[in-house]
Structures are given as C-alpha cells and as structure tokens.
C-alpha cells in the first residue's frame, strides 16, 4: 500500500512539477532565483494537503494544484512587496536557458526559422516578434486575416516538424 502511495506521489510530481514551474516562471520571471524553491515548496504543500485529506475531489486535482500554486504566488509577491516595496519586474522574454531540453529545442527552432521561406518568416516576425494582431499583419502584408493564420500556423507546423525530427 505504501509502495502504491509512493508511486502516486511520484506520478503527481512528474506530472505537475513542470506545470507549476511554468506558472511560477510566468508570474515571477525565469531569472528569479526563488523560482525553483517556490516550485518545490508548492509541491510539498500539495502533497501535504493531499495526505491530510484536504483534497476531497470537489474539483479536479489539476484545479486543486492550480489553486495552491496561485495562492502561493500571490503570497510570495505580497512578501516581496513588503520587503522591496515593489516586486521586481520580470524580464518578459529571457532566453530559454532554464533547462537543457529547452536549450536544445531553441537551437532546433533557430535552424527551422532559418529554413523558412520569406513569406512565413515575415508573418511570424510581425506576429510574434512585433506582436501585431492578425488584422495588423494582414494589413502590412496585403493579405486576408485568414491567410495570416494560415501562414503562422504553417510556419509553426514546420518548426514542430523540425523539433520532432
């Protein structure tokens, strides 16, 4: 029985650690040195609450974990605000260096970007880099909004293909 619980805990950690980590990094910024500690702390809280029977299945486990994560993020920001008066502004788009996997993915994406035809590169440059809306990109390129979606989606498809190869 104890072995079974250990397996469940292992599964839970494997499943939710990356999601919690993503949510925490998005809220605090990946450069924040407290991210890893906070993720571990949240996971401990989740396991503790489950073991104490606080998860009664009223909502899904995902929602349960999400709620604990969000509350802890809010508490962390509140604590930091008290100390620093202002929470540090997270760097919005740091290089994805947080994991070896992410770094490898990033290298593959770069290769895929280089191979893209100019029309796809231009569409994703305007859409993702300049953050223009689909309508604005359509106006810039002189095509329909639907065409912009097609260009962006096809470019993503080609990048994903490179990532899977």
């Amino acid at each position, binding site marked *: 029985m104890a072995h079974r619980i250990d397996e469940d805990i292992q599964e839970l950690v494997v499943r939710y650690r*990356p999601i919690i980590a993503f949510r925490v990094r998005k809220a605090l910024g990946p450069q924040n040195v407290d991210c890893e500690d906070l993720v571990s702390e949240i996971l401990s809280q989740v396991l503790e609450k489950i073991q104490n029977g606080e998860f009664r299945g009223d909502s899904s486990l995902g929602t349960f974990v999400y709620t604990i994560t969000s509350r802890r993020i809010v508490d962390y920001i509140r604590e930091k605000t008290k100390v620093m008066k202002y929470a540090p502004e997270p760097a919005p788009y740091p290089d994805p260096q947080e994991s070896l996997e*992410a770094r490898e993915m990033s290298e593959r994406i770069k290769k895929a970007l280089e191979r893209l035809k100019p029309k796809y590169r231009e569409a994703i*440059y305007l859409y993702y880099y300049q953050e223009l809306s689909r309508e604005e990109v359509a106006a810039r390129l002189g095509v329909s909004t639907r065409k912009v979606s097609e260009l962006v989606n096809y470019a993503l498809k080609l990048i994903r293909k490179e990532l899977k190869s």
Partner: protein
Amino acid sequence: MSKCKFEHLIDEYLLNRLSEKDKESFEEHYFNCSSCFEKLRERDIIIRTIKNNPALLLEDKAEVRSSVLASFKKELAAFLTPRPLALAGITALLILIVIFAIVPRSQAPAPNFFLTDEETVRGSSITLISPVIDMNNIPSSFEWKKLGDNVEYQISISNHQLLWKATTKENRITLPDEVKAKMSPGEKYSWQVKAFSPDGTLIAVSSRVQFKIAGR
C-alpha cells in the same frame, strides 16, 4: 495531441493579451489539460526563441526586397529586347503626333489680340471731359484729359455709324462745320478717344460716351 477548445488561447496567453479573468481560466485549464500544456510549453520556447533572435527573421526581409528587386530587373531585362523597344518607340511617336499635330487643329482658334475700332482695352484709359451729358446745342469742340507729351489722339464720333474721325496732338479738338452740319437736334451721338505713342502703338482708350442734342 488532440485539438482542445482552449488551444486558440495559447498565443493570446503568451503574448499577454488575455484579460485577468480569461488568463486565470486558461491557467486553471492547462493545469488540467496535458495537451494544452505541452503545446503551451512548446509555443513558449518558440516565441522566446523568436524574441531573442529577430535577426534570423529579419534576414528574410532583405531577401524579400532582393527577390522583388531581382524580379523587377528580370522584367525590365525582358522588356528591353529589340522588338518591344521598337514597339514602345513607335507608340511614343504616335502619341507625340497626336499631341502636337492633331489636337491643336481640333481646338478653338486662338484669341485675337488686335483691337478693332469698336474694341477697347482695360487698363490705361482716357477721361473724357466734354461733352459727357446731354447738350442744348451741337457742341463746337470736344475735350479730354491729357495723357502726356508726344501723344497722338484719335477721336471718333458716331451715331448709327461712324460720322467723323480725326487725329490731333492736343487734348481738345474743334468740330468742323461740315460735321456739325451732319448732326441734328434730338439725335443721340457717341464719342471716343484713343491715344497712340509716336511709333503708332495704342496706349490708351477712353470709354465710349453718349450725349444727346436737345430737340428744338
């Protein structure tokens, strides 16, 4: 990975375009949907890579420009072969012929800038002094304001037709008896003076003034 109804929110979430409420709903969703989370994580790395390497995408802008330039040059080169060039030359010649030879003929005649005896010009004018109102008797002389030295004046008197025309260097003239004889009480007459420079150029014209000789 199956298609999820929240999938379209991935870009909106990562580009911070969602309202606080939608953002929270989507966050709760990806804690429950492994398919959306996997796509979200992958898209996040793609967007961050794009954000950190715009040069990779900007190079294509130069390519786009150079490809447009190349195709333009190609078209120009194709156009500049002897046959189309000769056609363009002939077309241009025909257009020039139409503009310079045919079009002017079909237009109205150019305005005439020479004055006839009955025409006047605006601008410099001569002020007539007498007679300018109705007269009791046939006037014996006509007088106007002097324009300057060395000016020759031409006076003309008409009723239904030209009655008399004469020139003088003075600013007044006496009506000869034979002209007086042609004029009769109760009739309307008009007179006008034109001034000419010594070389015969018209320099000023008076208005045509009417007067009536009272009836007996």
